């Protein structure tokens, strides 16, 4: 086992990893940008290293600086969290070269997961259905236009190296494609350091179901059940739950087996997620592999009792996976609401600023993963996710009731947040029945127009 780990991230996921380290008796090193001097993860970690200026490309995406910090602090491993360098094969290779363990999949896994088109081809060859897309990256607007015409609108422009819903633009027609294409590339570069994008057919109003995967270095692979991530806005997940209220035990078995099949086909190692779209007729399509710990991992942790971050660390240090989904006692229901610093009344525009008033929820069945504190100033440079509120109970109805109560307790002011929106959703009868698709959120938000 490692004696010291560098956490190459910020915000709530940095806390999550630092806490896991502490419980395992491993020392932690936090890195931070000049804009994050007052961030709480510095206080939780054992050591702190400033990594560069505020802009992410010069700090949290600064590979050389991070490897250098790892060397100087003498860590045995780096945990990348999610986003930033988490799925960057070059970074994982650089770690390897420096003799530092990258806590995550192999560089080849990352390369393949990042190369969504090749991943789709391999998965398709194994008999798992996939969504139609351009055969390779699309380098120009003209090429995008030609492919979209052939495929038929609506289409999506997606970042090849993307994830977390960033760098995705849906285009209804040619005019939209012409305007959105360069912005999708810009977002791709800013978020992932790679501006390659591709075109994918847009499947109207599906459900989004994913399976958590764990794999060790000794060819053992298991899934840890499904997560329903259908409630999204602009491909940003808002609410996730486990289990899915829609899939039957039989379908869960088929999809879970397909997920394990996918992981084995690509020789996957460590924690990952296999994402599927499920259409109205119960057909599922492989979408992509997320080669990282995901934002929504807590709903799996609460229903399986397995600490996924500790498992990532254990597996990265050579530990063996000696259990499977059939052997674990999955129990109860967990729901996660992503609390973002966004204004639902202003088309979800970000709402940066100082947290003057902060009152976190608590009590039975409540887990709160956040980096907020009273007096904290939210930097403009980073993601608007400020908290993950997770409720757990034996039944879905019970988990919804706990979530509603916890949301009512939660105060963050004067910045705007998605808390009021989540409250409305908890009160919605379709949500309560588990009857929704990816278009669900449109009922709660006015017509989207980002052109103002």
């Amino acid at each position: 086992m490692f004696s010291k780990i560098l956490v190459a991230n910020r915000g709530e996921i940095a806390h999550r990893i630092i806490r896991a380290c502490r419980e395992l008796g491993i020392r932690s090193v936090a890195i931070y940008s000049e804009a994050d001097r007052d961030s709480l993860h510095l206080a939780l970690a054992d050591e702190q290293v400033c990594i560069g200026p505020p802009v992410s490309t010069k700090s949290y995406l600064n590979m050389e600086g991070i490897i250098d910090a790892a060397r100087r602090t003498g860590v045995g491993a780096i945990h990348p969290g999610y986003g930033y360098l988490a799925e960057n094969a070059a970074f994982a290779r650089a770690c390897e070269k420096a003799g530092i363990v990258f806590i995550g999949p192999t560089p080849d896994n990352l390369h393949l997961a990042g190369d969504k088109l090749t991943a789709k081809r391999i998965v398709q060859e194994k008999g798992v259905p996939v969504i139609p897309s351009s055969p390779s990256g699309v380098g120009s607007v003209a090429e995008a236009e030609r492919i979209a015409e052939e495929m038929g609108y609506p289409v999506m422009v997606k970042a090849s190296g993307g994830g977390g819903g960033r760098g995705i633009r849906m285009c209804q027609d040619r005019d939209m494609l012409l305007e959105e294409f360069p912005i999708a590339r810009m977002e791709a570069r800013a978020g992932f350091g790679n501006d390659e994008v591709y075109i994918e057919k847009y499947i109207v109003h599906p459900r989004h179901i994913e399976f958590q995967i764990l794999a060790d270095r000794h060819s053992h692979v298991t899934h840890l059940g499904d997560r329903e991530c259908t409630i999204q806005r602009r491909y940003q997940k808002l609410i996730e739950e486990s289990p899915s209220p829609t899939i039957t035990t039989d379908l869960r078995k088929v999809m879970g087996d397909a997920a394990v099949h996918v992981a084995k086909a690509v020789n996957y190692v460590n924690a990952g997620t296999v994402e599927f779209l499920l259409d109205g007729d119960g057909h599922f399509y492989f979408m992509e592999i997320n080669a990282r710990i995901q934002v929504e991992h807590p709903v799996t942790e609460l229903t399986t009792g397995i600490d996924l971050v500790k498992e990532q660390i254990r597996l990265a240090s050579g530990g063996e996976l000696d259990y499977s989904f059939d052997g674990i006692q999955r129990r109860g229901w967990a729901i996660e609401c992503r609390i973002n610093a966004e204004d639902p009344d202003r088309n979800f525009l970000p709402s940066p600023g100082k947290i003057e008033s902060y009152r976190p929820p608590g009590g039975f069945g409540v887990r709160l993963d956040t980096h907020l504190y009273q007096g904290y100033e939210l930097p403009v440079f980073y993601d608007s996710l400020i908290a993950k509120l997770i409720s757990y109970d034996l039944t879905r109805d019970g988990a919804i009731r706990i979530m509603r109560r916890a949301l009512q307790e939660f105060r963050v002011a004067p910045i705007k947040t998605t808390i009021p929106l989540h409250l409305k959703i908890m009160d919605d009868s379709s949500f309560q029945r588990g009857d929704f698709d990816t278009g669900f959120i449109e009922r709660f938000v006015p017509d989207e127009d980002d052109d103002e």
Partner: protein
Amino acid sequence: MNEPEENAGRIEVRVPMSGVFYRSPAPDQPPYVEVGDVVKKKQVLGLLETMKVFQKIKSPSNGTIVEIVPNNETALKDNDLVFVLEKG
């Protein structure tokens, strides 16, 4: 974007919130506009990145770019002045 402030044909374009200002759609591409350019109403003049979300900064009117106040990649505060246009 905020309502422009007009003063004898001079139009100020300010940002509606804090964020990082970009003059071009990508580092390897030319800026959206330069001083002296004639622009149309709703034409994109630049981008504002706030918490990883990009907003287009659009021209509130037809006119000519007289001044571009911040440098590329500058962190701006709510209501900072970005462009000055001459109405035309």
